[in-house]
């Protein structure tokens, strides 16, 4: 048994901030915890635990390992309503996504995301399903004019992805 008090001095705030800056979330330090973002955030409204404001407070106080496996950040729909109203220019969406990138690096990724990533690499479409019948039914070519129709275009995309740091994760 242990008391639940957080010992703030034992947290490595600098290390967490450095990782956030590297992943594009340097505006974390601008957040003053006013709560405006959370008041209109779909993640917060639906009761998921680590919505923007709360996530930023954990990160500001040097928490990272404790929250690494939480899937809330992956529920962010990137609606950017927060970005529009933030009084401190935090761009909360970018900070949430920076945290996602740290999670991704540690493979703390929900299954739905790995599936769409795999689809993305193999077909060029994150949302994929054989639609040829549906398409023909409405009078369209069975295959849309995308990477699905042009193999050399898919190759181009795969070249870009193979050369990106994402390839190191071994998810595709």
């Amino acid at each position: 048994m242990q008391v639940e008090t957080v010992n703030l001095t034992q947290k490595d705030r600098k290390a967490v901030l450095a990782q956030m800056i590297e992943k594009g979330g340097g505006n974390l330090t601008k957040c003053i915890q006013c709560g405006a973002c959370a008041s209109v955030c779909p993640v917060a409204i639906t009761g998921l635990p680590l919505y923007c404001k709360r996530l930023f407070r954990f990160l500001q106080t040097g928490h990272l390992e404790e929250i690494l496996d939480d899937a809330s950040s992956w529920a962010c729909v990137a609606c950017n309503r927060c970005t529009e109203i933030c009084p401190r220019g935090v761009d909360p969406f970018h900070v949430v996504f920076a945290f996602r990138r740290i999670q991704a690096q540690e493979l703390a990724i929900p299954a739905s995301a790995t599936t769409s990533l795999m689809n993305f690499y193999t077909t060029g479409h994150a949302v994929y399903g054989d639609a040829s019948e549906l398409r023909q039914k409405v009078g369209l070519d069975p295959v849309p004019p995308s990477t699905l129709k042009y193999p050399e275009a898919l190759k181009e995309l795969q070249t870009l992805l193979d050369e990106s740091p994402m390839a190191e994760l071994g998810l595709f």
Partner: protein
Amino acid sequence: MERCGLYLGCNIPLKAPDIEQSMRKVFPALGIEIVDLDGFSCCPAWGTAPSFDIDTWLVVAGRNIAIAEMKGVDLMTGCNSCFGVLSEAKHMIEEHPEKKAMVQEKLAKINKTYEGKTKVYHIAHILYKEIGLEKIRKSMKYKLDGFKIAIQPGCHILWPTKVMEVTEKNPFYPTMLKELCEALGAEAPYYSRLEYCCGMGALRSTDQEKSFLLVKEKLLSMKEEIDPDMIVTTCSSCYLQLDGAQKILKERGEIDFTIPVLYYTQLLALCMGFDAKEVASISEIPREEIIEKIQSEERAQ
């Protein structure tokens, strides 16, 4: 504008190709030639490259924009997520010269050039700004007098305004889609959850039940406040959620009504007299009845 690149994304060509067909019908009929962006890929969706590596996001988005640029056209998309991903990426590329150089260098390796000349539009912007309400009014075969529409513009077309070419006068109380629907003769009143998230996208794939909370809230606001004949959206994600989740909520008994859902170009195509089998034939909530009412003899001009 005489020609415009049509960026389809994933949902429209693979889940709701009748929406794609409706676009292919209405734009040429309204004087804008559609240019296919041959070899395009996923924008990349929020849950893919943007969640892993910013540069990869920018390069993949840059490639899609470059396809339009190399054909000498601007691009329009009917998927709000694609619109958000591409607009945000273009904004970042143009704001940061080092990112632009990086994108150009990586694209050069696959023989693509990116200069930044192509603008990213939403199809609603092209309909509203380029084609205009007057031309839409004149193109109609069936008028929607007496119909009440609940509009759903969706999030990514509203915010963040700083990354967009075209913005609403007030993005929290949008009126573009309202005016587009009114041009067809229908009424499109405000309801309090108009700007509220429908719950689609990452929320739906991460936690379906949570996502249903939002769509239910929205549907109830529509039903209780304005009791519409149909829901009309310009976002393919919202379309799939409002149509698909609505059916599930009805089956579970969480709502005791159904409201048919149409994508705006589907409704426009129906008003212009195109065949519903081609432009509006795939949905969970049945639309036959409303389509029959729209394309009825007494409405014919």
